[in-house]
């Protein structure tokens, strides 16, 4: 029997170690998180606008969406959307005359996590827009700005300081929620780690390494968001 590699060597890149597999998993985790975050913010903007300016019907639908998503565990939502989404899409395609196909795990993960994130960012963005002194928005309208110009020049820069802490929190949540995709069987960082740990029986080592990677992502993002917040708050009066 060949000698088993020990602690540092097991993380080497190449055939003998799991370094490259873990790096690949990290990359996938990061890209799922970023894309899902973008989808979530996109849904969030539409949702916030609908909740603030929409008809009562729109508002009721959106309230149903945010309440439902926030009351059910993410894991259950991911399972439902993953299976229901792929079945519904296949049914739709078959009825339109196309053949069915297997859903790409990556795309499904992005949209499912984005859908969940959308509910939370709707609330964050709605609160942030409501925190803007109404006079500023009225002034923009009085200048005859079109809705788009008003959004770009007044609403967006004025709401960012209020929205960023919440958005930063959502980013940290989505990076950690990507681990749930492992349960559906898509090999991102968490599942890769588990497979590597199972193969080598070095559970403690591998899960500690994965934890360290996630922690590093969180710490670096916190720094970035701190810097960003300082930047969007420039020109704002400080309290002391």
């Amino acid at each position, binding site marked *: 029997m060949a000698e088993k590699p020990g602690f540092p060597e097991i993380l080497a890149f190449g055939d003998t170690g799991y370094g490259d597999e873990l790096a690949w998993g990290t990359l996938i985790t990061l890209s799922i998180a970023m894309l899902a975050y973008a989808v979530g913010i996109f849904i969030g903007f539409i949702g916030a606008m609908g909740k603030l300016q929409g008809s009562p*019907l*729109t508002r009721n*639908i959106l309230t149903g969406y945010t309440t*439902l998503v926030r*009351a*059910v*565990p*993410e*894991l*259950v*939502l991911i*399972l*439902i959307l993953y*299976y*229901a989404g792929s*079945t*519904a899409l296949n049914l739709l395609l078959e009825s339109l005359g196309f053949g069915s196909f297997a859903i790409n795990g990556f795309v499904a993960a992005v949209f499912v996590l984005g859908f969940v994130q959308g509910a939370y960012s709707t609330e964050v963005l709605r609160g942030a827009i409501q925190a803007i002194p109404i006079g500023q928005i009225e002034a923009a309208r009085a200048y005859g700005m079109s*809705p788009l110009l008003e959004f770009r020049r007044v609403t967006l820069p004025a709401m960012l300081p209020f929205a960023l802490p919440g958005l930063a929190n959502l980013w*940290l949540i989505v990076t*950690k*929620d*990507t*681990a*749930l995709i*492992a*349960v559906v069987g898509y090999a991102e960082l*968490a599942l890769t*780690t*588990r497979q590597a*740990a199972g193969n080598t*029986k070095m*559970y*403690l080592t591998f*899960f*500690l390494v*994965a*934890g360290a990677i*996630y*922690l590093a992502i*969180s*710490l670096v993002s916190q720094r970035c968001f701190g810097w960003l917040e300082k930047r969007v708050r420039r020109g704002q009066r400080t309290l002391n």
Partner: protein
Amino acid sequence: MNLHILKIIVKTFILSLLALFALGILYWLLFASDWSWLPKYLPLLLKGLWLTLQLLVLSCVFGMLLAIPIGLVQVTGPPWLALLARWFCTLIRGTPLLIQVWLIYYGLGSLFPLIPELRQSFLWPVLREGFFYAVLAFTVSFAGYEGEIMRGAFLGVPRGELEAARAFGMSPWKVLTRVWFPRAVRLVLPTLAGETVLQLKATPLAFTVAVMDLMGVTTKIRQDTYRVFEPLMLLAVIYMCLTFLIVWGYGFVERKVPQKR
């Protein structure tokens, strides 16, 4: 005016899509779904509900007991203890719960059998179960999140009240139990409802370490009957009911606690 017409078109499109979706679900519920498995698995589901509630209550109670000193030492403790507590919170809040659960179950679980005294002890039947590791992981995680919140709560109590308590000649312990802690709890009560709901939504992860909680039972039903949606839908509804129960319960307690300052 063009924007106006576009808005109407988009709105009609989305509404008809939603109506189609609702009709589809209704059709499925009435004609295509199959609930014949429900009576057979009902006892198992109730057992799963009981386990889920146990996971939730045990981890919240023990987690809170850990969180109070963690929050407190960050406010008044010696610098090295405060640093340790802060690092603990960062560590827990910066890593996914799933990794923590697996680390504790597989990692710790693979270390325990190496100690022969443990294998003979009365604790061994407990240490073999995934339930124990799940409770441990959830407790530690809850302590990490709540420690941070309790730190804010302890800081949020007005200084004057603590000084007044001290001026009455109360010992530090008495200040804590009579003034500081009750005031801090009152401050976090609204936050705590949300945190408990988050903890409830974390419990289904226990099924990844072979705990037969609601999620585990549902997975078993799915594997036994090959029905995918019915069990998952039922699961979502049960969790939703639990969430509303928790929110309602905390609202009830909050109304009982005098809010006047």
